[in-house]
C-alpha cells in the first residue's frame, strides 16, 4: 500500500512523520539535527530516498545534509555558498545600501530531471545550484545582478529567496520569489532573469506598482498547468495565467488577504489553499480561529475549512514553506504552525487532525508520496 512521508523543519531540528495511505496512524521520528534551525527539508521527485535538509544556526552557520536512504542516515555536504564576484549592496530597512551577506539557505529544490542537481534559495537573496548532489554550489548570478538588485530590501524575515518553482514542461524555465523584491523568471536555465510583477500593488514602497520591491510571500504552480501561478503576497492573493507576465487579485471574499503559504490540490489545478492571517502587524489568525481557506474556482470564491482546527484562542502563524499536498487519490493537505502542530487532512481539507501537537515552531512542511 502506498504511503506518505512528511518532512518537517523546525526551529530546533527536523522531524519525519510517516503513515500508510490512510494517513491515520503516524510514526514520528526525530529530532534530526536537534537544536539547529532546519529551514527546509525536501526529497527528490526522481528518488524518494534522496532527501536534502538545510541546517543552520547563529553559532555555526549553514550546513547542508543529504540522505540517500529516506532519512534514516545523513551526511553533511558542501556548505560553501560564495556569491559570484563582488557581491555589491542591496537596500537596507532604512533605505541605505547594505552589503550582500550570506545568512542561510531557506529553500532547497531538487531537480525534476537530474538526481544530482539541486537548487538552493538563500538569504541574502540569491539562487545557487549544485550539480553534484550538494557537494559544491555555484551561484546563478544572473538573478542577483540583472539590474534591480540594489533596490531589493529585506522583509521582516530577511532578504530571502524562498520560492523556487521548476517548470515541468520547460527545463529552461524557473520561477523564484524574494521577500521583498518580488517574483522573477528565467527562460534560459538561469542565465538571465526578469522581474514578473506587473499587476502587483504594494503599500509601503514609494511606487506601489513598481517593477520590484514587492513582498511576495509564496508562489504555487500545478505541474499540469505551469503557466498558471498563484501568489500569496504580503497582502493580496494573486493569480497569473501567463507565467507571471501579469497578475490579477483573486483575494475575493477572504477574511484577510494577508498570509504566508499557498498551495494547490494535487489533482484539481483550480483548487487553491491559503491560511489567512490577521495583518502584517498581527501574525495570527483573525478572531483566534485557525482556518484554511479553499477556492475551487481558481480564486475569488473562498470557503473556510474549520473541521478539526481550533476555532477559539488560537494565535499561531503558518509560515510560507509550511504547507504541502500529497498526490494520493484523495489529496492530502498538510500544514505546520509556529505553535508546533502539524495538521493533516486526508480529504482535501474537509476534515483536519493533528499529527503532532508539540514540536518546536514549524518552519517548513513537505510531503513525499511513496509507492
Amino acid at each position, binding site marked *: 500500500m502506498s504511503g506518505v512521508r512528511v518532512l518537517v523543519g523546525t526551529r530546533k531540528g527536523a522531524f519525519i512523520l510517516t503513515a500508510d495511505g490512510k494517513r491515520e496512524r503516524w510514526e514520528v521520528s526525530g529530532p534530526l539535527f536537534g*537544536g*539547529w534551525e532546519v529551514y527546509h527539508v525536501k526529497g527528490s521527485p526522481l528518488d524518494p530516498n534522496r532527501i536534502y535538509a538545510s541546517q543552520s*544556526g*547563529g*553559532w*555555526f*552557520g*549553514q*550546513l547542508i545534509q543529504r540522505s540517500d536512504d529516506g532519512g534514516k542516515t545523513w551526511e*553533511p555536504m558542501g*556548505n*560553501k555558498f*560564495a556569491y559570484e564576484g563582488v557581491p555589491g549592496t542591496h537596500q537596507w530597512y532604512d533605505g541605505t545600501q547594505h552589503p550582500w551577506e550570506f545568512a542561510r539557505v531557506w529553500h532547497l529544490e531538487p531537480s525534476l530531471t537530474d538526481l544530482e542537481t539541486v537548487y538552493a534559495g538563500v538569504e541574502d537573496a540569491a539562487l545557487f545550484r549544485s550539480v553534484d548532489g550538494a557537494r559544491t554550489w555555484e551561484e546563478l548570478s544572473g538573478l542577483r545582478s540583472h539590474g534591480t538588485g540594489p533596490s531589493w530590501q529585506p522583509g521582516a524575515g530577511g532578504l530571502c529567496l524562498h520560492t523556487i518553482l521548476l517548470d515541468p514542461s520547460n527545463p529552461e524555465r524557473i520561477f523564484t520569489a524574494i521577500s521583498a523584491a518580488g517574483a522573477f523568471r528565467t527562460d534560459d536555465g538561469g542565465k538571465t532573469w526578469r522581474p514578473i510583477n506587473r499587476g502587483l500593488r504594494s503599500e509601503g514602497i514609494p511606487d506601489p506598482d513598481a517593477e520590484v520591491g514587492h513582498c511576495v510571500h509564496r508562489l504555487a504552480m500545478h505541474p499540469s498547468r505551469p503557466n498558471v501561478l498563484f501568489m500569496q503576497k504580503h497582502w493580496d492573493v494573486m493569480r497569473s495565467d501567463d507565467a507571471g507576465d501579469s497578475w490579477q487579485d483573486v483575494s475575493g471574499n477572504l477574511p484577510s488577504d494577508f498570509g504566508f503559504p499557498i498551495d494547490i490540490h494535487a489533482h484539481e489545478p483550480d483548487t487553491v489553499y491559503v491560511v489567512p492571517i490577521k495583518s502584517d502587524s498581527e501574525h495570527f489568525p483573525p478572531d483566534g480561529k485557525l482556518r484554511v481557506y479553499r477556492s475551487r474556482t481558481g480564486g475569488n470564491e473562498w470557503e473556510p475549512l474549520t473541521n478539526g482546527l481550533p476555532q477559539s484562542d488560537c494565535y499561531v502563524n503558518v509560515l510560507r514553506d509550511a504547507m504541502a499536498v500529497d498526490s494520493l487519490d484523495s489529496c492530502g493537505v498538510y500544514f505546520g504552525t509556529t505553535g508546533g502542530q502539524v495538521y493533516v487532512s486526508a480529504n482535501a481539507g474537509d476534515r483536519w487532525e493533528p499529527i503532532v501537537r508539540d514540536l518546536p515552531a514549524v518552519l517548513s512542511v513537505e510531503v513525499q508520496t511513496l509507492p
Partner: protein
Amino acid sequence: MIRVVLPAHLRTLARVAEEVELQVAPPVTLRAVLDALEATLPMLQGTIRDHATQQRRPFLRFFACEQDLSHASPDTPLPEAVVAGVEPLLIVGAMAGG
C-alpha cells in the same frame, strides 16, 4: 599531540568524542590547529571560521590555559601547555540562547 575540545553541536556533526587529538607541525598557532582540524574533519569547514574570510564566527570563542585567545592574531603561537598536550584548546560557543 594537540588536544582540541569542540562544542557539543560540532562533536555531533563530526561524530567525535569531546576531545580531538591532532598532529600539528611547529609553529603551533591557532591557524595551524584549525587548518589541521578542518583537514581531519572537513565537515567542520565553515562552522568555526567563515569560508571566505577565515574570520572566527562571531558566536565562537577560543580559550586555553584560562586565557581568552579569541582576539589574538591567528598566527600567534599557542601557549606551551597546549603545544605540549598538557592543556586543550577549547572552542566554545557563546553562552547565549540555544
